[in-house]
C-alpha cells in the first residue's frame, strides 16, 4: 500500500503540472478542448489525492505500523475516532489533507463555473493547479506520508498526543484547512481576472459563495481551537495571541473586510483596487498561516522546529506577493472606480470604516506576530510583545467594529438624511443606553466591558428592529402569521438577513469575550481533601481524590487517571460536584521501566466544568505524584529482577496488579493537590454567539431557488452574448 500511496502522489504531481500547462495553453490559444482538459486535470487530481488519503486513513485504522507515520502518530490503544483524525496531527498527513481539500474545492468551483467566466477560468485553473503542484511537490520530494520503517514493523506505535484527543481536534484542523484552501479560490480567480483584464463583477459573483464558505470555515475552525484550549489545556483561557492562532486570524479579518467591501463594488462599482487587493492579501495570508505553522521562524507553543519547509514556503510567498503587486499596479487603469463616495453618512462609508478597522486589526496582529523578526532586523536584538500589547490595540478597534456593525445595516446606501439616520438609530441607541446604565449599576466598573455591553445591545436592537420592520412590511403585503412572515423574509433575501444574524452573533460573542476577560476570578490553590477555597461568591471544596486505570477497546491499558471531586457551593447551596483529573499516558521509551513509563509519557488535563448561561465554574487539578515515586521505582525493580523471568502473560498480570495497587495507594495516602479554579462570566455566550454566526453564514451562503434559476439564465445569456461578440485571450 505504501507503493500505491507514493504512486498516487507522483501521479497527482504530474497531473498538476499537465493541468496547469494545458489551462494556460488553452487560455492563450482559445482552445476550448485544452481548457476542458485542464479542468478535468483538477477533477483527476482530486480523485488521485482522495485515493492516497484513503490509503493513509486505512493504514491508521488498521494500525499498520509499517507506515512510519502511523507508528509515530497512532497506537493500538488510540480510540478509533481519534485514529481517523491522527493523519492530520502529522506534518505529512496535514499537507496531504491540504492538497485534498484544495483539489476538492477547486473541482467544485470549476464544475459550477464551467459555463461562465470562460476567459478567466483557464488562468484561475492554472493558479489553483500551481498551488496543487507546490503541495504535491512537497509530498513527493520532501515530506512523503508513505515512508516505511526500515527492517522491522513495531508491535506498538507512539500514539496520538493526548492533548489532541478532543472532539474539536477532529474538526478543527479540517475546518482551518478548508478556510485556507477555500480562500485560494477567490485568489486564483482574482489573478485570472487581472491577467485577462476582465475586471467586472462576474468573477466576484462566481467566487462569493467560496469566499463566504472560506470565511465561515476559518471562523468555525478558530472558535473550535479556542474551545479546545479552554477545555483541554488546563489554563482556562481560550486565546493567547500565539503566532499560530494569529496566523489563522489574519486571513479571517481581511476576508471579513472583503465580504463587506465587495458589496460596494457590486452596487456602486467602487473600491475595485481595494477589493482585488483584499482578495490577494487574504490568499497570501492563508499561505502565510501555513508557512508559520511549518517554518519554525517564530516561537510558538506549537512545535514545528524540526520542519524543513520554511524555504519552499518563503519562495511561494515571495512569488505570490510580487506577482500580486505587479498585477494590481499594471491593471490600475481597468481598476479605476466608477463612482465616488457621495456622503460620509451612507452605508458605503460605514462599510469603508469597517474595512479600515478590520485591516488595522490585521496590521496590529501582523506587527505583533512578526515583531521578533522586525525587532531583530531593526535593533539586532530579538524582542516580543505579549497579550497586553495586543489587547491595547485590538480592544478599542473591536469596540469600533461592533459599533459599525450595528450602524451599517441601519443606514441607507449613497446618502442618508439626518432625519432618517436619527429615526433608525433611536431605538438601538435607547436600548444601548439602558443596558449601559443597568450594567454600570449592577455589575462593575470595567470601562471597555461596559462599552462592549452597550454596543452589543445596540447591534442586537438594530438587527431586531430591521427584522421587525421587514416582517411587518411582509405581513402588510401578504398577511400570514408572524413566524411564517419571518421565514419568508429571510428566505427571500438570505444574504442580507444571514448577514444580520452574523452581526448579532458577533455582538454576542464579543460581549462574552468582554465579560469573561474583564470579570474573571481565578485562584491557584493547594488543598488537601476536605479543604475549601473561595473564588468570588463560590466555595469550592476538594471532596475526595479519585484514581482509575482506563483500558482501550482492545483491552490494553491506555492510561491512568488521578483526579478529584470538587463540590461547588454558592450561598450555602450545593450547585454541583465537579470531577477533574489528569490522565497519564505511557511512554514507549526503551529505557523506561514498565511502571515508570506511565509517569514519563504525555499527560492531559480533563477540567471540571459547570457551564451556565451567566457564568462558568471551571477547575483543573494537578495531582502530586511525588509520594508514589518510591513505589514506582520499587515496581520497576521487581520487573527488572525476578519479574524479568516470568512469562509475558504473568508479567502482564503482575503489572496490572502493581498499577491497581498504585491507584489504590493514591486514593488512600493522597498528598495535597494543586488546583486552578476559575469563575468566568458569560463564557457560553462566546460559543453561542459563534453558533449564531455560523448559522447566519450558512443562511447567507445558501442560494435560494429563485437565485439559482436567475443565475443560470443570466449565465446563459452572458455566454451567448460573449461568444457572439467578444474575443478571448490575454
Amino acid at each position, binding site marked *: 500500500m505504501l507503493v500505491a500511496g507514493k504512486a498516487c502522489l507522483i501521479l497527482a504531481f504530474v497531473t498538476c503540472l499537465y493541468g496547469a500547462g494545458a489551462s494556460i495553453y488553452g487560455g492563450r490559444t482559445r482552445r476550448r478542448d485544452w481548457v476542458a482538459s485542464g479542468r478535468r486535470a483538477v477533477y483527476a487530481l482530486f480523485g488521485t489525492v482522495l485515493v492516497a488519503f484513503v490509503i493513509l486513513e486505512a493504514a491508521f485504522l488498521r494500525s499498520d505500523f509499517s507506515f*512510519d507515520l502511523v*507508528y*509515530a*502518530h497512532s497506537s493500538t490503544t488510540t480510540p478509533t475516532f481519534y485514529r481517523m483524525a491522527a493523519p492530520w*496531527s*502529522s*506534518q505529512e498527513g*496535514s499537507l496531504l489533507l491540504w492538497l485534498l481539500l484544495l483539489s476538492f474545492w477547486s473541482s467544485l468551483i470549476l464544475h459550477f463555473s464551467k459555463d461562465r467566466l470562460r476567459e478567466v477560468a483557464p488562468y484561475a485553473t492554472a493558479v489553483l493547479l500551481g498551488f496543487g503542484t507546490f503541495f504535491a511537490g512537497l509530498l513527493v520530494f520532501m515530506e512523503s506520508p508513505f*515512508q516505511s*520503517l*526500515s527492517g522491522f514493523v*513495531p508491535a506498538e506505535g*507512539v500514539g*496520538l*498526543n*493526548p*492533548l*489532541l484527543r478532543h472532539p474539536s481536534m477532529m474538526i478543527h484542523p479540517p475546518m482551518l484547512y478548508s478556510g485556507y484552501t477555500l480562500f485560494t479560490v477567490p485568489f486564483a480567480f482574482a489573478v485570472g481576472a487581472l491577467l485577462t483584464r476582465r475586471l467586472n463583477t462576474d468573477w466576484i459573483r462566481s467566487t462569493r459563495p467560496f469566499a463566504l464558505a472560506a470565511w465561515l470555515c476559518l471562523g468555525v475552525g478558530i472558535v473550535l481551537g479556542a474551545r479546545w484550549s479552554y477545555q483541554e*489545556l*488546563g*489554563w482556562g483561557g481560550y486565546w*493567547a495571541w*500565539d503566532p499560530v492562532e494569529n496566523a489563522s486570524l489574519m486571513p479571517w479579518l481581511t476576508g471579513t473586510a472583503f465580504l463587506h467591501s465587495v458589496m460596494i463594488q457590486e452596487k456602486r462599482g467602487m473600491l475595485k483596487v481595494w477589493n482585488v487587493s483584499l482578495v490577494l492579501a487574504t490568499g497570501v495570508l492563508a499561505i502565510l498561516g501555513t508557512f508559520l*505553522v*511549518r517554518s519554525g521562524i517564530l*516561537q510558538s*507553543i*506549537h*512545535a*514545528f*522546529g*524540526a*520542519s524543513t519547509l520554511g524555504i519552499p514556503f518563503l519562495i511561494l510567498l515571495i512569488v505570490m506577493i510580487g506577482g500580486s503587486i505587479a498585477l494590481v499596479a499594471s491593471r490600475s487603469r481597468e481598476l479605476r472606480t466608477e463612482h*465616488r463616495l457621495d456622503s460620509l453618512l451612507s452605508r458605503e462609508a460605514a462599510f469603508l470604516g469597517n474595512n479600515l478597522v478590520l485591516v488595522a486589526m490585521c*496590521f*496590529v496582529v501582523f*506587527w*505583533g506576530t512578526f515583531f*521578533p523578526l522586525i*525587532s531583530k532586523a531593526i*535593533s539586532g*536584538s*530579538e*524582542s*516580543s*510583545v*505579549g497579550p497586553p500589547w495586543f489587547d491595547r*490595540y485590538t480592544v478599542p478597534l473591536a469596540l469600533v467594529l461592533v459599533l459599525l456593525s450595528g450602524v451599517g445595516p441601519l443606514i441607507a446606501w449613497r446618502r442618508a438624511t439626518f432625519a432618517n439616520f436619527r429615526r433608525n438609530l433611536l431605538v438601538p441607541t435607547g436600548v444601548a443606553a439602558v443596558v449601559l446604565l443597568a450594567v454600570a449599576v449592577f455589575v462593575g466598573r470595567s470601562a471597555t466591558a461596559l462599552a462592549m455591553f452597550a454596543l452589543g445591545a445596540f447591534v442586537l436592537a438594530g438587527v431586531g428592529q430591521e427584522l421587525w420592520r421587514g416582517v411587518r412590511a411582509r405581513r402588510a403585503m401578504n398577511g400570514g402569521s408572524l413566524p411564517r412572515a419571518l421565514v419568508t423574509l429571510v428566505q427571500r433575501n438570505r444574504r442580507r438577513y444571514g448577514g444580520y444574524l452574523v452581526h448579532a452573533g458577533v455582538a454576542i460573542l464579543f460581549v462574552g469575550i468582554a465579560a469573561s476577560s474583564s470579570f474573571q476570578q481565578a485562584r*491557584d490553590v493547594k488543598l488537601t481533601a476536605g479543604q475549601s477555597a473561595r473564588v468570588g461568591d463560590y466555595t469550592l471544596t476538594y471532596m475526595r481524590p479519585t484514581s482509575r486505570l482506563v483500558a482501550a477497546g482492545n483491552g490494553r491499558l491506555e492510561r491512568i487517571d488521578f483526579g478529584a471531586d470538587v463540590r461547588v457551593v454558592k450561598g450555602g447551596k450545593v450547585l454541583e460536584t465537579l470531577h477533574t483529573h*489528569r490522565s497519564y499516558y505511557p511512554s514507549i521509551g526503551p529505557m523506561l521501566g514498565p511502571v515508570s513509563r506511565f509517569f*514519563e509519557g*504525555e*499527560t492531559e*488535563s480533563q477540567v471540571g466544568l459547570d457551564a451556565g448561561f451567566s457564568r462558568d465554574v471551571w477547575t*483543573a487539578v*494537578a495531582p*502530586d505524584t511525588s509520594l508514589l515515586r518510591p513505589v514506582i521505582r520499587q515496581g520497576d525493580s521487581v520487573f527488572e529482577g525476578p519479574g524479568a523471568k516470568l512469562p509475558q502473560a504473568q508479567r502482564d498480570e503482575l503489572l496490572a496488579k502493581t498499577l491497581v495497587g498504585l491507584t489504590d495507594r493514591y486514593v488512600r495516602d493522597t498528598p*495535597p493537590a*494543586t488546583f*486552578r479554579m476559575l469563575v468566568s462570566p458569560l463564557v457560553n455566550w462566546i460559543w453561542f454567539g459563534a453558533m449564531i454566526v455560523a448559522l447566519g453564514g450558512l443562511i447567507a451562503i445558501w442560494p435560494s431557488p429563485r437565485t439559482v434559476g436567475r443565475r443560470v439564465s443570466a449565465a446563459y445569456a452572458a455566454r451567448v452574448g460573449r461568444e457572439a461578440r467578444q474575443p478571448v485571450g490575454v
Partner: protein
Amino acid sequence: MDPSRKRRVRLVAALTTAVLLAGALVWTSFGSAAQTRTPSQLLASASAGQSYQLTGKVVPGYTRDGTVTNFRVRDRTGTASVPVRYAGELPDPFRGGREVIVNVRKQGGVFVGEKDTLVTKCPSKFSAAKPKSQS
C-alpha cells in the same frame, strides 16, 4: 468647498491619522516588548528587574512546592542553564527535555517567571521522534 478639494482634505486627514496610529503602534511595541533571550545570553548579561522572554529546554529534575515550581532552563543546543522559579499552574506537556517559553525577571540569582506566561511547546505535531526510516 469644491468636491475634489474636499476629497483631498479627507485623504490627507485619513493618511495623517493612519501614520500617527502606525507610529504609536511601532513606538509602543518597542517600548513594551520583552527581549527574547536564551539561557546563555541571560548568563552573559541580565539586568535585575528587566523582563526577558526566556526560551530553552527544561532540565530534568525539577521540584514543586505547592504551586511553586523550581526548575532550570538550558540552551536548546548546549548545556548553559539558568534557574527559574515559577508560581502557578504548569501546562500539561511541561516536563524535562521540553521546550518552554516564559517571561522572567532576575531577582538575586534566580529568574522569577511572570504569572501565566509559561508555555510549553506542543510536542505533538511535526516533530515526533522517528526511528530510522526509508523512503
